[in-house]
């Protein structure tokens, strides 16, 4: 998604009198100076990283094939980060999300491959495992009042053990189901890709136009139609370019096997983006999450059940981890005790923070996961093309996370100073 199509900006622009593009631009720069950076840092990071890697390794990095790799490499991080955003919005953390994904993937592998359950039943078991893990963590954090850091650290260890026990002696369980394997490894036909493009752009145009018209009808201040048009055109151009590039042939031997089209996982990501963004910005539950994250006492006095909101957020996090687990299983076409381990969780937290979600709670959006996930994936994808030392890769990713957290802390301080906290 582009920086110009964010819910916050629409939201804020709605408050502004009908002043056209110039007014919208002045408002935006004013907000950025006041410390509300929004998507700016992550978009800038993404653009500069792409420029750097293209300059250094253009023959490998800037290729349609590599672009498709980026999408599948970032997909698992993005879905995990989407879940973590719910927890981060409360000012909490879930260190166990990576192994929650691993545990759910193991449940999928055992039920599907070893027990021979039908796919829908296996998927229900996988998601239910995620819900159960989140419920357990949420109840302990919200009802017993133990810091989430400690609870999820304990779960980080315990779930690692669960994965080992579930998978058993064999070590690795293959996934043979063609539908699961297709999510991360197959592509839509070029025509289907353009159809997806048409649906997304059409739906966005229709929904935003309807909102504009309704606000105008009820006499409320609306964003300028020019701003709306710019957003629609930007979205159409960016998505159109992406589909165009992905529809290029990217097989080294096209006469043997043709590889082209938008990966199927993009549909999963888009559905989650729309559904979860709606959940966080357009429902009372979403408003309550933001309220609890910034001022739990105010939320309690307003009659909100703070404990229930906390539990729901941990459930959302672990459930999305289950979805990420399905993607892991699809990508590797197998599940092993290390699935969801090593750097998985840290990359996902990093993605959320790089995308603009605050570690202090109360600030963040679902699309942060996509922007941040792409930044993390670009680093992981581009650096090995330049240097073989995997040590460098860890160091660079660590530095980027540190920079993102610093931007978060500094912009927060600036926002407080200018009264926008």
């Amino acid at each position, binding site marked *: 998604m582009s920086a110009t199509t964010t819910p916050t900006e629409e939201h804020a622009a*709605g408050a502004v009198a009908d002043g056209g593009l110039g007014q919208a631009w002045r408002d935006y720069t004013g907000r950025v100076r*006041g410390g509300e950076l929004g998507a700016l840092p992550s978009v800038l990071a993404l653009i500069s990283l792409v420029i750097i890697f293209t300059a250094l390794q253009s023959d490998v990095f800037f290729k349609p094939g590599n672009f498709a790799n980026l999408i599948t490499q970032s997909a698992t991080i993005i879905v995990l980060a989407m879940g973590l955003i719910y927890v981060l919005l409360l000012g909490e953390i879930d260190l166990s999300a990576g192994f929650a994904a691993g545990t759910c993937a193991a449940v999928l592998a055992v039920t599907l491959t070893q027990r021979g359950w039908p796919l829908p039943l296996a998927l229900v078991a996988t998601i239910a495992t995620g819900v159960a893990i989140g419920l357990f963590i949420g109840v302990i954090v919200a009802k017993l009042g133990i810091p989430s850091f400690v609870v999820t650290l304990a779960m980080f260890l315990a779930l690692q053990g669960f994965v080992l026990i579930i998978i058993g002696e064999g070590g690795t369980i293959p996934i043979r189901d063609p539908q699961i394997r297709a999510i991360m490894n197959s592509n839509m036909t070029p025509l289907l890709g353009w159809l997806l493009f048409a649906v997304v752009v059409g739906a966005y145009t229709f929904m935003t136009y309807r909102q504009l018209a309704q606000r105008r009808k009820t006499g409320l201040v609306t964003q300028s139609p020019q701003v709306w048009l710019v957003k629609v055109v930007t979205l159409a151009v960016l998505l159109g370019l992406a589909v165009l590039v992905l529809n290029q042939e990217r097989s080294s031997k096209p006469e043997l096997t043709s590889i082209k089209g938008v990966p199927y996982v993009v549909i999963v990501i888009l559905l989650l983006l729309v559904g979860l963004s709606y959940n966080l910005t357009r429902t009372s539950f979403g*408003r309550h999450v933001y309220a609890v994250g*910034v001022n739990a006492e105010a939320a309690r*006095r*307003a009659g909100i059940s703070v404990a229930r909101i906390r539990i729901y957020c941990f459930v959302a996090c672990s459930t999305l981890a289950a979805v990420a687990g399905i993607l892991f299983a699809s990508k590797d076409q197998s599940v092993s005790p290390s699935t969801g381990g090593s750097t998985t969780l840290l990359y996902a937290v990093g993605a959320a923070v790089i995308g603009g979600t605050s570690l202090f709670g109360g600030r963040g959006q679902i699309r942060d996961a996509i922007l941040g996930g792409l930044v993390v994936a670009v680093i992981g994808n581009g650096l090995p093309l330049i240097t073989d030392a995997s040590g460098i890769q860890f160091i660079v990713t660590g530095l980027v996370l540190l920079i993102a957290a610093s931007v978060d802390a500094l912009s927060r301080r600036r*926002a407080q100073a200018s009264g926008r906290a």
Partner: protein
Amino acid sequence: MTTEDTGQPLLTLSKVNKSFGAVQVLREVDLTVRPGRVTALVGDNGAGKSTLIKGIAGIHAFDGGTYTFEGEEAQVSDPKHANALGIEVVYQDLALCDNLDVVHNMFLGRELKKGMGLDEAEMEQRASKTLAGLSVRTLKSVRQNVASLSGGQRQTVAIARAVLWNSKLVILDEPTAALGVAQTEQVLKLVRRLADNGLAVILISHNMNDVFEVADSIACLYLGQMAAQVEKAEVTHGQVVELITAGRSGDLGLAPSTSGAVA
């Protein structure tokens, strides 16, 4: 600004008590609150103002005595009961969420729904109407985040939230404590306007100037007892200060034998 007791009281407390363990915080307190009037609640630190307010708001129930609202005896042991009766409290620390805009703060916890989502248009219109009804013109937009508002504007939003729900009694806990001169004036005018719109207002304040500027009736708590509830027009500044510090002033206040060590 009538000084006579006109009409039926909205809220009457009669001989309410409240103890926390061995400590009796409120003793046989009477209080009468009438619609269309500002009743100031004054008293030194520890006199029991907060306990009295929390009892009225249902945060903790009184131990004894009667709680009469609109002529009927009521059992208020939960904040939701108080809300249902039409009682709203604006707390000193405001309880606003900085990351939400004015509309969402005013409707926090009681959002209007349309289908699965929120009825943003209706909420925005009602918020604007309520603010306009209170003659609030200092807000640039109801869609700006509360974080960007000044102290006075935040207090305004908190008060507007309290009157949004057709409330009958609004309790304000030190609304001007953290404000500058101009903003204090602005909030006091708003408090007066609430009463002029027919609401009953209880104002807790330490500031005698505020009390004398805006109140109709003054209730003085002294060491957990109601020293006196007097009409503003009938007392002087000095008498109220004496009631607060000594529990009595001339004929007013507690009888010498019950007013503690000071008298």
